[in-house]
């Protein structure tokens, strides 16, 4: 083998290696991957959380406590513990269907499409916000606008535009995602480019063995002093939750357990 051929091969190998490295960075910076990473980190494979929800209005405030189980992108079960008035009320989502259970009526109701836009338990979240928690992954195209530095972390600012016929009312959404997969902020814009509501991280801490946004707030930007804050009190991730958790039977007659790994 001649010298020139050998050096040529080395050069080729180097170029290929450089390409490989370039591709790797491209993948890390791919906005769709960042978004999916953040949602997956937030929901984990499965999770059990104890959550406090505060609904704030200019003239009143109400706090409630609930327990929630999630599995994958689609399935979740939320059961209210406090206040006594709402205790036992639960919402189950399996795939794209939702049911609500009210202990007072002792009935399970499959949520009709006409109620999807209504407020969930009087909060600033709608049933749609719950039902379409994975919508940001599937119905948008993402564009990395810039990368900020904050507290020693890189923060990706991503602008997400809905696909043409996607069932999304927003003109666009702007996400701020930290390089350790924390979703710091999600702003919803109307179609004139005016921000309408914003979900933002209030507190970051360690929870269930990982760094997590432990408190976040949803606020309506056109109505001052209207917000809902969600604070995680307890969390465990990666539980092995049986199918029985996400069933109508468990919605109506809660079984104990499934709270620890």
């Amino acid at each position, binding site marked *: 083998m001649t010298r020139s051929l050998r050096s040529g091969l080395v050069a080729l190998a180097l170029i290929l290696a450089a390409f490989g490295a370039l591709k790797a960075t491209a993948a890390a910076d791919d906005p769709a991957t960042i978004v999916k990473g953040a949602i997956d980190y937030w929901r984990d494979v499965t999770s059990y959380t104890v959550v406090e929800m505060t609904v704030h209005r200019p003239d009143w405030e109400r706090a409630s406590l609930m327990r929630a189980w999630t599995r994958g992108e689609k399935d979740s079960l939320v059961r209210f513990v406090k206040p006594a008035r709402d205790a036992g009320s639960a919402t189950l989502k399996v795939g*794209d*269907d939702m049911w609500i259970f009210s202990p007072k009526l002792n009935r399970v109701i499959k949520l*009709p*499409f*006409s109620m*999807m*836009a*209504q407020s969930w338990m009087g909060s600033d979240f709608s049933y749609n916000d719950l*039902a379409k928690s994975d919508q940001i992954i599937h119905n948008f195209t993402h564009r990395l606008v810039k990368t900020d530095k904050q507290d020693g972390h890189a923060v990706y600012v991503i602008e997400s535009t*809905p696909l*043409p*016929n*996607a*069932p*999304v*009312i*927003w*003109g666009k959404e702007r996400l701020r995602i930290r390089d350790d997969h924390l979703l710091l902020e999600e702003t*919803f814009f*109307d*179609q004139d480019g005016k921000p*309408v509501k914003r979900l933002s991280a209030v507190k970051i801490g360690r929870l269930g063995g990982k760094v997590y946004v432990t408190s976040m707030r949803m606020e309506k930007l056109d109505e001052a002093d209207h917000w809902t804050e969600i604070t995680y009190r307890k969390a465990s991730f990666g539980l092995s939750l049986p199918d029985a958790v996400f069933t109508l039977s468990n919605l109506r007659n809660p079984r104990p357990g499934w709270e620890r790994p």
Partner: protein
Amino acid sequence: MARLALLLRLARRSVLRNRRRTLIILVAISVALWAMIFFAALTRGWENDVVHNAIFTLTGHLQVHAPGYRDDPSVDHSMKPPNATVAQLLAGTEVAAWGTRVRVPAVVMSEHDTAGVTLVGIDPAAERGLSFIADAVHTGRYLDSPDDRGILIGRALADRLGTGVGKRVVVMSQAADHSVADRGFRVVGLFEGDREATEMAYVFVGRRTAMTMLKLGSRVSELAVMLRDRRQLPAFLARLRTAASGLDVQPWTTLEPMAQAMVALGQAWIWMFFVVMYVAMAFGLVNTMLMAVMERTREFGMLQALGMRPRLILIQVVFESCFLLAAGAAAGIGLAAGTLSLLHGGINLSILAQGAEMWGMGKVIYPAAAVVDVIGATALVVVLGVFSSLYPAWRAARRVPIEAITRN
């Protein structure tokens, strides 16, 4: 005969003798008749409007649905598109327009608000002549084809949702498999309805787009048919019922019972008004004639003394009433014709639109005089007017000459 001619001359003279009295009674009769005709025309205009609106607001002259759809207009009650026998009937000469639609309850959402509506999937070309929508687009464009991916919404709904042409709204409904069907649509046009309720109630999309969204396959919700002439409805209905056996075939009168009830109400209303107006006018007529007769006590006494039979006096007074009634009726009809021709362009009710809508009225009402009402009102006034003048005539005929002459 000569006697009758004499009586006619006497009657004509006495009518013309007291001009003021004659004028007053003429005004009373003509105003009464004018009010009757005008009111009837207004009511007929309102009836026409209610019927026109009922038919053109997506009803047509008749509709075919799956059994159960009328009680529960959901995706569950959909039907196959028209079969060969029905299609052959629809190609007949009496059919002016027909189209199939998807029509289900839905929710439309914008960034700011949510509204419950009826989602209608249409064949844009088929709707021409079948419903109002083809000519109702106010801004933007009409749908181009059943596959059009845009949506048409009412102007009032757009205001409520804070959206407009070029923006996106999300429509949610129930799919045939009972899952939630949702999809984003770009608003391509805003339509203006005759009533605000229509603008709020319906949103229109391409029929095939709706079928895909609702996972309906080739199934549709309804078939609407417009005939060339409403009078052909019963015969056509019977034939269509045979052709489309197993389906629910109904005329507009069943589909829009409210419109039908409004028409019946309008009819009754016209006659009630006629009777009230007639009674008011009749009292005026009787009173005036009675006064006329009283004033002429001496005259009648004199005529009787000269040998005129009481029966002839009675006939003379009735003739006088006839003259007055005929002249008054002619003036009344003339007055009504004049008023109606002035209001030919319709009466704009938009200042009271919301109140008027409660009564099923549109923004503009076009008075429509019906020949039957004009004849009815005139006949009522003249015939019954003659009858009511019998009493004063009878009083006049009963004057005993000696009493008449010695009085005063």
